[in-house]
């Protein structure tokens, strides 16, 4: 039994199971996707567990972006609750998992700085950026507004002195200065984030470690594989660049797989080995424009199944809270698809296949 064991995980396991029971079911998702438009969708969302978050928005403030932000607040509350209840030794891992959104926020801030002010003088740059930031509240070290208002990427990054991002960005900034492209900064941030998350998972012992490596490793598998494929197909990076921009670890994906993709072997054979359940990879990769997002959806469904499976068996380990938080995130992704689809009046057949949970029920 890992440190924490039954006594350490009894409360959090019960709490997480109670929270998990409030998750949207596949039927809920199907019902939400059947609504006529954005307003109807919001109306129906108010009767779900997201109701209190959506209801805090006044009608005149209601935009798709703000609705998504409110949904994310529920995920933020879930993280707060889980991290505070977790046993001491498991908190660094959960906190690092939560940092994913901070890294995303940082990228959004830098993109905002590069994009510059809006053509509409009534809307400040910060107004535009803050609506896309994950609501981390006090759990962030980013001086986001000051960064956005600093006016340049160099000045914005200077404001990160003393934060965990200073060191990583100090290397990447040399390249940014030469290339004037955020790609180098974003890759450096991503690699650093996943390396630290993996390190935290490996620091655990016993069943905690086993379960953490399973959930975190599966997340890394999906990201690493999609990076490798995108770098090769879209960015057409060289073998050495592709290797340097990916990670040598994961749960099922081995370094040889990534190196094989980098060296130019058939991608579908690698995907078929790692994800035997994912069919038609060849067809998907024939048309990367549409195929890659579909492949990503397939991999996310696989991840979702793996997280759901974590709830079966011994409940006294870190895998349960980890899996719950990942599932929560995937649920928000489904809601994001729905909100964006409904607000742009997209026909059902165009977005339904991108819903993770609703399609899972059909399957």
């Amino acid at each position: 039994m890992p440190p924490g064991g039954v006594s350490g995980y009894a409360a959090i396991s019960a709490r997480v199971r109670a929270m998990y029971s409030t998750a949207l079911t596949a039927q809920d998702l199907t019902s939400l996707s059947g609504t006529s438009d954005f307003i109807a969708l919001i109306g129906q969302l108010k009767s779900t567990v997201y109701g209190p978050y959506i209801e805090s928005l006044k009608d005149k403030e209601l935009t798709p972006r703000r609705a998504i932000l409110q949904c994310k607040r529920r995920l933020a509350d879930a993280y707060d609750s889980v991290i505070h209840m977790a046993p001491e030794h498991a908190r660094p891992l959960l906190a690092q998992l939560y940092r994913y959104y901070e890294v995303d926020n940082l990228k959004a801030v830098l993109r905002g700085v590069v994009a510059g002010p809006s053509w509409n003088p009534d809307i400040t740059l910060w107004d535009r950026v803050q609506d896309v930031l994950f609501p981390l509240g006090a759990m962030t070290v980013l001086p986001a507004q000051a960064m956005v208002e600093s006016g340049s990427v160099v000045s914005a990054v200077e404001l990160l002195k003393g934060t965990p991002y200073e060191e990583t960005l100090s290397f990447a900034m040399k390249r940014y200065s030469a290339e004037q492209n955020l790609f180098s900064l974003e890759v450096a941030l991503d690699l650093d984030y996943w390396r630290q998350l993996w390190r935290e998972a490996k620091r655990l012992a016993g069943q905690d470690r086993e379960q953490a490596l399973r959930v975190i490793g599966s997340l890394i598998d999906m990201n690493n594989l999609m990076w490798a494929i995108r770098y090769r197909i879209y960015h057409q990076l060289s073998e050495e660049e592709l290797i340097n921009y990916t990670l040598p670890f994961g749960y099922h994906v081995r370094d040889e797989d990534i190196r094989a993709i980098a060296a130019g072997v058939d991608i579908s054979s690698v995907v078929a080995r790692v994800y035997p359940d994912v069919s038609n990879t060849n067809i998907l990769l024939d048309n990367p424009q549409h195929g890659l997002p579909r492949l990503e959806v397939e991999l996310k469904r696989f991840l979702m199944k793996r997280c759901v499976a974590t709830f079966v068996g011994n409940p006294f380990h870190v895998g349960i809270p980890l899996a719950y938080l990942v599932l929560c995130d995937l649920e928000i992704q489904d809601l994001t698809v729905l909100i964006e689809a409904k607000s742009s009046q997209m026909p059902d057949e165009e977005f339904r296949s991108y819903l993770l949970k609703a399609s899972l029920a059909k399957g």
Partner: protein
Amino acid sequence: MFFPKAMTEIELIVPSKDLLAVTKTLSGRGVFHQADSGYSGAGGESGANTWLEKTTAYAALERRIQVIMQVLNLDEGQPRSTNIEKMIEVEAVLPTLERIEQEVKSVSDQLAEERKRVEQLESVLRQLEPVADVDVDISPLRNSHYLFSMLGVIPVANVDRLQTSLARIPYVFLTLRSDPQKPVVWLAGTRSNSDVLERAARSAYLNPLTLPDGYEGSPAQIISSLRKTIENTQQSISQLKQELIRLGDLHKEQLLTLLWSIHTSRILSEAIVRFGRLRYTYLIVGWVPSDDLEILTQRLKLVSKEILIETLPTKRGGHNQNVPVALQDSKFLRPFQMLVTTYARPRYGELDPTWLIALTFPLLFGAMFGDIGQGLVLAGLGALMSSKKVKALRGMAGLGGLITICGLVATFFGFLYGSIFGFEDVELFGFRIHPLWISPIHNIMQILTVAVGAGIVLLTLGFLVGIFNAAMSRDLGHLFFGHNGIAGFTLYLSLLGAGGASFGILHIAPHIFIALAILSGAAVMFSEIFINLVEGHRPLIDGGVGTYIIQAVVELFEVVISFLSNTLSYVRVGAFAVAHGGLSAAIFILAELGSPAHGVVYWIVVALGNLFIIGFEGLIVGIQTMRLSYYEFFSKFFTGGGMRFESLTLNPVDDE
């Protein structure tokens, strides 16, 4: 004394020519609370916009001066007495400010440039130091025909991945200096593979060392040249710093005068923005404490002969939510005002509970912490805090008075309990210290009963004050039928009476109290209907009758439970008095164990134990007293929610 300061609403109509003088008079006395009257009258909007623009311009100027002063390391100091005859003209001060700003900026930019240069050179130096002993001219490596070579730093996490990415070509990779974060490495290969090597190095974030122009030779020679350049640059930095000090001395007075004049102009124009603009006059609305009204009106008439002043004294009764609340000035009451305002600020028509808390808080504290010695120590500590003589305690000076009074009352209770530093029944300076009343630890039931009795008295007082407040605000519904109104109070007393009669304490038939309790209970239970009836609200109940009855029964149950818990909560006063004696006894047992012969160790343990009691128990008792005051006592009568009186002030030392 028992209410916040009486307020008078004041409306002024001021001719435009006297605007500045009147605004200065209003802001100079610290007795005028401004209300927003900036509505759009004839030509009002454009007038308000002009003042708004001026305010923005002043704020921008103020900020610019503050930035200059920050660069020059000048302290803004205390606000200066400013007796400006007219507002600062932005255009008039701009040239002077721009000249100083330019002078300072030119030096500070040079300084920043030189500092950056030193940083860059030191970075190159750090990378070269590990290879200082290589006696080879490294400059040709930069332009080698056959060899690709790169010296630089790389994130330590990327080292393995870089080597993996180069697996299919020949290369040499050496770590020249190990570092947990930034190792210095050298990567080399054939020139024919330079594109692969370059891509791999770039994607692994290997930052190559770029030697500044003009540095050639072996690493040792370059290091020597670099050090010399750094030394020269440091000298230049020192000179620039001296120049900034000189500029600071030169412009200090001018900057300070400008800063505070502009600050004053900003405050005045901010106030004027909120005045109402008529065609030739301005309308000013606000509140003045009635006691200061006469002096203020006299001064206003002195500075403006044509000013029209209309005053309207404000009554306590009725709804006064928009009247600002200034509490009475009293040095003695100030610490207790802090306790009250931490909970809430009284409304204008509400009884200010400061005087009540000034009586009850020290009493409750003293009863729980009764000890002559410890009380005196606490009082001494409080006096020390108030005196601000100890730097470390200055931050808590505001609490000093409260602690002193609590300590003195604890001393008084110490005499009642016969306890000095935990010792009971001892002889001191020829006097035998006997309890003047009782020793809590030996009379536990008695002290607990007295504590509950004191609680009943305090809660009764709370109910009475609550009823008075409701009557003052003409809130008849809550006055008669509220949980803390007459119905609630009758229910509380009748429940107490029924209890007293049942236990034979009161010689009155219990069913009289039971009948009263049923009547008043029914009034409390259906208070919502009665209150709606009195206030004329319809419908009388929300939702169905069945739901309402269930809700009313539950609410009545909750009210009765809260009466019980509020009363029993005061048991803690007696319990802490007992615990205080118990804790002292434990310290003496420990001291006895350490030194049965009452040697030095015994007294050390007793001294440390007393310090522990003063610190630890003092804190806990303080928190408990606050809890009793806030939750049991205040909840019976104190609503709060008053608006703070914020006087229009130019700066604290300014007097017109």
